[in-house]
């Protein structure tokens, strides 16, 4: 087994500011960046703040930026770097720092609450749901999401534009709207909820200009842009410009 000493630069600080701190730390065969951060905690910086849980790419807790790129620390193998490289680890840039590598990801929880939940179909008892595999697979792809928020972090609509956060749900939650919209049994429209329209009007779908940055960083390899956001845009556009839909919405409005 081979071992070497790596150079790490880790951002340390809190809401009041901070700086990159240099460390020299042992690296062994097969290790990932999170192992090295843990070694720093155990040997050099016991109060180094970092979030992590499963260490297997399943929970989406250990998101950070490694050499400027949003990644899961537990799925970034040290073998992708040259032993001579200086590895820089910084907190997610789109969210306010709490301490060291921990950021306040409250934005995402706020947005999650703004997406109306699944609407169960009336008159279908539990146990009576029938769906074909091919029909559930579209939404299943989006439900692979581990909520690491890397897509939210990298999306240029909010990455350096704090002012857009109010109007824009971000790729993860626009994808959630798409997931519900494609759910074979979601009864939102029967309940008077037009998910396509809300994507556009309430969740800021129009801000997305399909640069696919979100898809690139997704550790689950979900095709966020191609399979969720573009189809949602197409559907929203269909509704907006379909004269029949337009007429229908006028008539309904007059009734109420």
């Amino acid at each position, binding site marked *: 087994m081979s071992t070497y000493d790596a150079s790490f630069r880790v951002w340390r600080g809190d809401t009041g500011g901070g700086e990159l701190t240099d460390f020299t730390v042992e690296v062994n065969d097969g290790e990932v960046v999170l192992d090295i951060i843990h070694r720093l905690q155990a040997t050099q910086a016991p*109060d180094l703040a970092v979030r992590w849980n499963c260490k297997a790419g399943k929970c989406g807790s250990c998101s950070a930026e490694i050499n400027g790129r949003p990644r899961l620390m537990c*799925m970034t193998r040290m073998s992708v770097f040259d032993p001579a490289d200086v590895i820089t680890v910084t907190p997610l840039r789109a969210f306010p720092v709490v301490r*060291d590598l921990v950021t306040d990801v409250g934005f995402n929880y706020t947005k*999650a609450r703004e997406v109306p939940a699944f609407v169960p179909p009336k008159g279908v008892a539990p*146990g009576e749901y029938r769906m074909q595999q091919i029909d559930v697979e579209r939404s299943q792809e989006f439900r692979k999401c581990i909520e690491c928020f890397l897509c939210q972090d990298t999306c240029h609509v909010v990455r350096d534009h704090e002012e857009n956060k109010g109007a824009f749900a971000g790729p993860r939650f626009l994808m959630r709207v798409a997931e519900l919209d494609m759910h074979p049994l*979601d009864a939102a429209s029967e309940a008077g909820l037009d998910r396509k329209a809300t994507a556009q009007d309430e969740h800021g779908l129009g801000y997305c200009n399909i640069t696919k940055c979100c898809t690139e960083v997704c550790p689950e390899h979900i095709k966020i842009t191609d399979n969720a956001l573009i189809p949602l845009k197409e559907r929203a556009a269909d509704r907006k410009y379909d004269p029949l839909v337009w007429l229908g919405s006028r008539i309904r409005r007059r009734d109420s």
Partner: protein
Amino acid sequence: MTQLERQQWDVVVVGAGGAGLRAAIEARERGARTAVICKSLFGKAHTVMAEGGIAASMGNVNSGDNWQVHFRDTMRGGKFLNQWRMAELHAREAPERVWELETWGALFDRTADGRISQRNFGGHEYPRLAHVGDRTGLELIRTLQQKIVSLQQEDKKEFGDYEARLKVFQECTVTRVLKEDERVSGAFCYERESGRFFVLEAPAVVLATGGIGKSFKVTSNSWEYTGDGHALALLAGAPLLNMEFVQFHPTGMVWPPSVKGILVTESVRGDGGVLRNSEGKRFMFDYVPDVFKEKYAESEEEGDRWYEDPDHNRRPPELLPRDEVARAINAEVKAGRGTPHGGVFLDVSTRMPAEVIRRRLPSMYHQFKELADVDITAEAMEVGPTCHYVMGGIAVESDTAAARGVPGLFAAGEVAGGMHGSNRLGGNSLSDLLVFGRRAGLHAAEYAASLAARPAVDEIQIDTAAAEALRPFSAEAPEDGSPVENPYTLHQELQQAMNDLVGIIRREGEMHQALRKLAELRMRARRAGVEGHRQFNPGWHLALDLRNMLLVSECVARAALERTESRGGHTREDWPSMDRAWRRVNLLCHLADPTEGLAPPDSERGQIRLVREETDPIRADLLSLFEKEELVKYLAEEELYE
């Protein structure tokens, strides 16, 4: 009087995994104002790591399945030590709990006729596990999380406040359950981000904190699994049940070292994967124990035919319950027939086309590719046992999930004991979470509503809890000049000791050695010091968690030393066979320390007192589900003729 924030709730749920969230949903729907408090972010709980599925006898794939068959399999898997009423409720209610998830938006894999698909798993007679590829736990957590959000959206409409009746305190930790006399009065907590203390005053507390795996070195468990709920219950005066039973999952990754222990789902075997030793032999055929002889294939040919024609063939022995497979792997490696990295081979590459593997086992494919450079569609995986689950836990009433001896305290999920007996079947954990999470939430809400007056919070308990939590900041170096202890070092020593001395195969001498080591660590842990301040300080958090891990580890070691037989997740090299007389014995761990963990404990006697208790006789109609010939293997003579 300590100045801190206090809030009043009807029910406080500790833990936001499957059991905690299901309990919270139920309590809130029964009208209780409910607070959930969890160590991680909402939606990150350990439940996301469950891969294979949720066991429920819906009979969608094989209509021969029903709750009685599921009950039978569960009792066999647990070697009849299960709290049988829990096993019965679990088998009866699991299908409803799964169907309910669909009404909250869950999307399971489907059968050709559009129902929920079900897959084979170890110890289950029929295909029984509802699943979503190999990420079922994520689907479960996300569905429950989204149901919580939908309840909050209702409250927003009604009260203008998302958190009017259901609030999640994320990244917060409970260090003490507070009581007035015998009854629960609340919980003492700290917020990880700020280090700030606060008290949730509530007459009912549901513990749903999961397991204890972080006391072992090789484990599939995340950092959160430090036995918090087990310790909180002990410290509050509730006993733990049968803590010697710890499940070592047979297939964890063994290479590279940094991922050692990460789980390789049993679905790999359920879907056709086979185990081979370094000589290429499918060794499991040599390890079928007598109690299971009639139920498993005797030849590879028969085992292979079973996947296509389960009605006329017996299942392959790779699908024996987990304890059997883990011991077999251990024995093969010990006999020198292991792989280069000390495991055995688990192979699907020669059994299924590559594209089927990628579809059915996507996260396993991903995990091996990215972490070990192994393409499981082309080569075999190397796997070995990893600490996975604790069957022991808080002793509860079967129907209500109420902890014994402490009114107002409830427990559900892995932290509760009894349901799985001496060994849990794969897939029975997620169903357990749902069935008993719901029951705990229901009865906690009813209990809270039934009280005429709420138990008062005792200020002295709050002061003491605050002082206890702050102690690591003022740890004193001992007089002999040795330094303050590093909590990370103590944790590593604890994990090594439990792994080596109270692991998968146990010996009397080693367990005595473990108890001495635990006593030493307990003394040193009192001097564990931390650097820095209270804001998001992992060293401090670990120093506090050590108390819980040490308490729980002592329970495991003492109970394991006491039980002089081998059964399920407890294997004694010096007592290698199952003893029918022990089937009727529950071992209860009580806190023996009158200061409730505050004073330096006596190193010899430790903090735990063991009490033997006779189990309730199994109800006659449930016993009659088994053949007499089978019961003879488990039950003592007098039980058979009663």
